[in-house]
């Protein structure tokens, strides 16, 4: 019996362990290796790091790819553009999403379930098609321009597509459910009597909101913000469909370095720097936050 349990446990740990090491960890290690390799013309387009020469084993590693991307303001700017985009849209999602999540969570149960379904429907619809919908709307001959011209507000169609604001709009729209759903999850468990208690004790609604409601929904705010912020930094599709040439973003330049310039070492160095600058701080932050939250509970 114990033997069976041991055997079962062994396979339960070993199978996913093996899969993730093979298809997640090794590929990451590989792009790290390529990111410190020397570019070369050929296939694959980089020099093998280890080579045997007459003098024995020679190791050809270089930091030049990293130096290159950090010395060129082109790459630096695209990082900043992506961070800016992620930060702005996370904040807007929070500002729009919070009241919606709050009021849905506070509705009566039968209405609440219906509203919840209505929130989830856009979330299930294809991501790509939701971005595309904005392309249709913001077109020069799109619905907004048509209405504005018809009512005489403007003579010429406004160009609303292919700029940074269209990208922000697209991001806010597609990622809004990711903000609302975790917020709702926390707010629905929230005891409404606490609001009454706070106002009975003489707190103004404003104070109740900032001193009672916000602190208690902080885990939801954090979870929602993470779900929006992280993927938006690497976002490729939305800038590609709605953005213009005025701003380049991190996801787009990795794509172009790989598919257009075919410079594997630079693309890998960009990806690795993304991991070092972004992913690792986020993982550390989440660990610290989990610890802090656990302590306070």
């Amino acid at each position, binding site marked *: 019996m114990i033997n069976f349990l041991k055997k079962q446990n062994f396979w339960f740990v070993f199978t996913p362990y093996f899969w993730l090491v093979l298809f997640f960890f090794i590929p990451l290690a590989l792009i790290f290796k390529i990111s410190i390799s020397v570019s070369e013309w050929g296939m694959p387009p980089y020099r093998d790091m280890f080579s045997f020469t007459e003098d024995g084993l020679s190791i050809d590693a270089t930091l030049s790819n990293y130096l290159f991307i950090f010395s060129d303001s082109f790459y630096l700017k695209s990082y900043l553009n992506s961070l800016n985009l992620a930060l702005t849209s996370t904040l807007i999602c929070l500002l729009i999403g919070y009241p919606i999540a709050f009021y849905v969570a506070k509705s009566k149960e039968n209405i609440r379930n219906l509203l919840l379904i209505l929130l989830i429907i856009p979330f299930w619809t294809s991501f790509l098609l939701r971005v595309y919908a904005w392309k*249709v709307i913001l077109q020069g001959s799109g619905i907004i321009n048509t209405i504005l011209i018809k009512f005489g507000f403007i003579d010429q169609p406004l160009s609303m597509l292919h700029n940074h604001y269209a990208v922000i709009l697209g991001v806010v729209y597609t990622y809004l459910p990711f903000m609302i759903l975790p917020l709702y999850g926390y707010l629905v468990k929230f005891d409404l009597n606490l609001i009454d208690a706070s106002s009975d004790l003489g707190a103004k609604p404003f104070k109740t909101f900032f001193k009672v409601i916000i602190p208690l929904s902080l885990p939801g705010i954090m979870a929602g913000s993470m779900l929006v912020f992280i993927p938006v930094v690497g976002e490729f599709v939305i800038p590609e469909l709605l953005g213009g040439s005025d701003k380049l973003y991190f996801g787009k330049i990795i794509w172009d370095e790989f598919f257009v310039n075919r410079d594997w070492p630079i693309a890998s160095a960009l990806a690795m720097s993304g991991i070092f600058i972004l992913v690792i701080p986020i993982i550390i932050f989440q660990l610290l936050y989990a610890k802090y939250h656990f302590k306070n509970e």
Partner: protein
Amino acid sequence: MQNIILKMNKIFLKSFFLTIGFAFLYFPILTLIAYSFNDNKRVMVWKGFSFRWYGELFRNEQILEAFMISIKIASLSATFATLLGVMIGYSLVRIPKIPARPFFIFLSSSPLVMPEIILGLSLLLFFISSNHLIGFPSSKGQLTVLISHITFSVAFVAVIIQSRLSSYDKNIEEAAQDLGTLPNKIFWKITAPVILPSIISGWLLAFTLSLDDLVVASFTTGPGANTLPIVVFSKVRLGLSPEVNALSSIIMLFVVIAAAIYYFVNRSNVQK
């Protein structure tokens, strides 16, 4: 009196936010649906009501084939990802001795915070290198897309299973054990039924993730493995496509039907 004004104010605020919020969520989708009935090759110029683009859509072999490939990859990926995800969730909650446990946790949770463009790039370079070294995978195609989709979906399933397992009372399992039930039976008769709803939602999430993925699939795809998002993206990258409008309406219809079924099943359950 003041109370009534305050209450009116509250109701007004509530309906204001909810109306604006839902209008924002639904306006783009409804616009797409409306334009899908436009009988004009130029998407934005209204010519008249017709089902023309639905007909074109069902005659478009490229889209139909891509749809079948996407469904196939998504269902396989969801099934394997659920299997692996259940194993991870179970291991993390129930198995105390995991070799290099922090590394295991890192592996099973960091795909959640990894931008898909980095994931796609690393997997593609991995497939190319392993093809050079051992000849596997022999070419990029449906298999490489499937492997990639399983890899990034596992973490999502694992989180769902893990939270379900850690929130339910372990004593039930221990009671069964004290009563002499075999571990095998405990797993299938107690643990599995308890986590079944989470398994189903994990599978559905993994299915949606795979069906919706463009970036990772674009990196790892090859001949004969153009998934629906890849085909749609190539159609709308430079312009608009009336067939894609029709496709959006059909997807929307399915989603609404699924949501309605879910809502009514859920409601009758609650009433019981």
